[in-house]
């Protein structure tokens, strides 16, 4: 008997009698200012927000925040890539020295400052992780309250089969429980709210 058949057979004989699957409420809240809460939670997660309601001059804004970024890759129209071109990258390993990546966030979750990045918008999946610094541009109209509503938005999953919630920069507390920002992934996360 294959292990597959063996395992399924064992389960069939040992599983408990049927328990029904509960319906998950949305736990909606109308008493919360999503924008304010999102900003607070992002700060708690180690990130920062910048309000930028106009698209003109976003490149200057970002260059102003990261004056030392040499190689910048952006998938946002209003922000120019710098010293590197998507077309010149044939292998994700070439991204090892990217200083800054600017990405479009699909929507944000106010309760935990998580932002959904769709794999369909990434020319390489490793982009948000390999960069030294990360900027996500997010439309504040695309904020929802909690993860239940977030998953309603994901009924249609990214076509290429990958997506990630990102909340803050990469971090660790594995040495004596001291929080260190910048473990393996991006050392900072800036969310530009448009």
């Amino acid at each position, binding site marked *: 008997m294959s292990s597959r058949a063996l395992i399924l057979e064992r389960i069939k004989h040992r599983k408990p009698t049927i328990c029904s699957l509960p319906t998950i409420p949305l736990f909606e809240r109308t008493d919360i200012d999503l924008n304010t809460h999102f900003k607070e939670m992002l700060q708690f997660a180690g990130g920062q927000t910048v309000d930028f309601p106009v698209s003109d001059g976003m490149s200057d804004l970002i260059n102003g925040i990261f004056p030392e970024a040499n190689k910048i890759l952006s998938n946002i129209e209003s922000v120019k890539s710098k010293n590197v071109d998507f077309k010149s990258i044939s292998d994700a390993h070439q991204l090892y020295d990217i200083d800054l990546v600017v990405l479009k966030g699909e929507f944000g979750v106010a309760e935990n400052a*998580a932002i959904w990045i769709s794999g369909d918008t990434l020319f390489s*999946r490793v982009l948000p992780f390999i960069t030294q610094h990360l900027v996500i541009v997010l439309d504040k109209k695309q904020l929802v309250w909690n*993860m*239940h509503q977030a998953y309603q938005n994901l009924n249609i999953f990214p076509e290429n089969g990958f997506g*990630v*919630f990102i909340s*803050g920069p*990469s971090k*660790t507390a594995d040495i004596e429980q001291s929080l260190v920002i910048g473990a393996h*992934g991006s050392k900072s996360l800036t969310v530009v709210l448009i």
Partner: protein
Amino acid sequence: MTHSEKATRYIKDEARVDWHDKALWFVRQKRDIQTKKVPEWETLRELASQIKANVLSELDTYLTQFEENAIKNGVTVHWAKDAQEHNDIILRILNGKNAKKLVKSKSMLTEECHLNSFLEKNGIEVVDTDLGERIVQLRHETPSHIVLPAIHLKKEDVGETFHTHLGSEKGAKDPQYLTGVAREHLREKFLSADAALTGVNFAIAETGGITVCTNEGNADLGAHLAPVHIASMGIEKIIPRQSDLGVFLRMLARNATGQAITTYSSHFLKPNNGQEMHFVIVDNGRTEQLGRVDFRKSLYCIRCGACLNTCPVYRRSGGHSYSFTIPGPIGSILSPGVDLKKYASMAFASTLCGSCSDVCPVKIDIHHQLYKWRQIIVNESNSSFSKKQIMKAMGFLFSHPGLYRFAGKTGRKLVSSLPGFVLYNGLNTWGNGRELPQPPAQSFREWYLENKHKTGNKL
């Protein structure tokens, strides 16, 4: 060695024990603050528990549904009945791609299967990429906590390890600096890896996808750069619907570390262009646990580690006092099912205070299971537990009123007449840190007979 023997040794360094206790209690406090900000927290616990109950009751259906969808997504699915088969599958995949260097993110399942040593024997370089796991790997230790693998170490220990293995400055102990050293070291490993292995936090039946949660980003750096991504999962990691993630992702990090969510919650459905993706579904004793009516709820566990953080015994005895891969309360109800004799003492390493059950996000009745395992261990393990004999005597004593009263009086006299060195020698461990109660002149019964009974109080 038993838990008690190891804990006695651990507890000798009281300053370190106090640090360990306070560090973990601080995590528990952070957890309390975050969970109390969610008004529906208790409802979420109930929902999570119900979802897991449903999963167990339809586990075979969900697993086949998951497999079917994963295959449709272009993933190769493997089934392993035990640790050996799991390890063989991994090795076969690696050999098939001529892969020599594997980067691995956190997976307690691969610890359980002793995958690292197996692969190393077969010529594969395995690098654990979670910072805490990398630290313990370099020290040839095992994780002492399922979420905080290096919580038993101080920064000085890490500094020394990194100086020896990674060439960091001698005497350096600043966590920021040491993390930076590990970052550079592991970036090089990510960029040169031939394959990546990740754990699985949740496997979704209706999509065939998996969700992996990290704070460091190590799972993603490995999985997206390497030409092969392997994900190992126990059969109990299945959840029915993608929307169930709403419940679990709201709870996991809040309960584990007091964060609202982990930094990265990555959803893998299809392999990257030009990449291979493999899921390995592992039993290794889980179907046996499923068959144990009193203990099957232990399979609900989502490995948040909160029961370790809250356990007053774990905090003061350290993870390495528990001999099983998973320490603390959850490890103590999983381990007897794996080897009743070997892990017999773990179920007794608890005061049955119940904090573990109340902190559990999926409502596993951990302390009741500890109680039930004790009955089985004493009855079936045929162990050298002398306690069994003592308790038998006590049971006999208490069921014989005359004998009990005699022994009680004698016992009290004995306590008051014995010199201190007899009471506080190794035989009477109560004398360890505590005085015995001062024996009263009369027991209550004697007082009652003298003052109440004779004066005609009706019974």
